[in-house]
């Protein structure tokens, strides 16, 4: 499962962990997160995330 990084603050979305504080269950692929979800650290949207290489 691909990890994604927030281009603004560097927070990493790990699908295995999800973002339970925002209702995103562990195991949720980044692509399946609702579009109104926000980065839990800095508040930007999904558009500001990129695939974490390597």
């Amino acid at each position, binding site marked *: 499962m691909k990890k994604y990084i927030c281009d*603004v*603050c*560097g*927070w990493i979305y790990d699908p295995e962990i999800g973002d339970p504080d925002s209702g995103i269950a562990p195991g949720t692929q980044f692509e399946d997160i609702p579009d109104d979800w926000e980065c*839990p*650290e*800095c*508040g930007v949207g999904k558009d500001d995330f990129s695939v974490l290489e390597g």
Partner: protein
Amino acid sequence: MNTTLKEGIDWVGYIDWTVRDFHGYKTDSGSTYNAYLIRDEKCAVIDAVKAQYVDKYIARIQALTDLKNISYVVCNHAEPDHSGGLPGIMEACPQAELVCNAKCKDALEKHFDTSAWKWRIVEDGDSISLGKRTLSFINTPMVHWPESMFTYVPEDKLLFSMDAFGQHFATAFRFDDEEPLDVIMQEAKAYYANIVMLYGRPIAQTLDRAAELEIEMIAPSHGVIWRSHLKEVLAAYRKWVVCKPTPKVIVLYASMWQATEHMAEAILEGVQEHEVEARFYNVDATHSTQIATEVLDCAAIAIGSPTLNNTLMPNLAGVLCYLKGLRPTQKKGFAFGSYGWSKRGGASEVEDAMKEMKIELMQEPIRSQYVPTPEILEQCREAGRAMGRYAEQFTK
């Protein structure tokens, strides 16, 4: 005024006694824009001031050293209250390198004409030797902007913490033991609540990283420098990053013809049956700065608005927009309000806003058609009692 932090390290900032508005934050105590000069084999300036005060900042530096001796100008944060004076100092010191991280360079290039600047781009963990001392850099994204960083001088155990631990507080003194501690802590709390409350998670991580450093002094970019009360401010930040509840309840409302106000008063009566702090705010009489400061560490909040034009009272809507952006956590509460013929807007819309703010709802909204009946006022009292009971458990 003593401006010396450590031998060879001086404050060269600007005291802004009269500023009362800081992008919406009501700064009744003014502010300071702190910049620092380090004189070593090479000299470095840490940060700048607002653009309009650049001459006074440069004069303070010149009083201590020849501008030709400045090798580095460090920019820890690109926001104009600290970066506004950079074009001036870079022009006055053409030999100096502007030291910042890559994100900061990008932001500065989008603020100023930087075409003549020499750059020294640093990454997290990099350091620069000045001779006897070292400048070491720690990226602290979102404390307060994405490019924010701390500069640490290990030889002096001195941390330049940028906006973290700052206060909008103009004073003739530069250090935390020269003004009453309760005044400084209140200003630090207001600053935290109104500037960085929403970044509690990254700030908590930053506190963890700072805990690995030996620190004797913290020099923020606003307000007094911490040299005697580091323990107190660090402990307070540990509580603030999680918006830790205290035994305090807030009743916040707007009213048209006093119906919602009477409901608010009944809620307050219920709260006061418990041994908790209470805050009672009519939005028209209280600035959002004060409300946000109190929300930071409250346990519960009731928010009320009548229905006006099928929506909310606009002043309350503005405060809710502000609070929602600040993302307080660990709060409970409920909505209330009167209406005439339409249940749209009013308490319903307040509740929607509270849901968006992730405030845990303690009950359904309390509504009153026109003037509240004794039964409705008793519902309000009971809801107030429930908040008081809940808040009481946070008593030490």
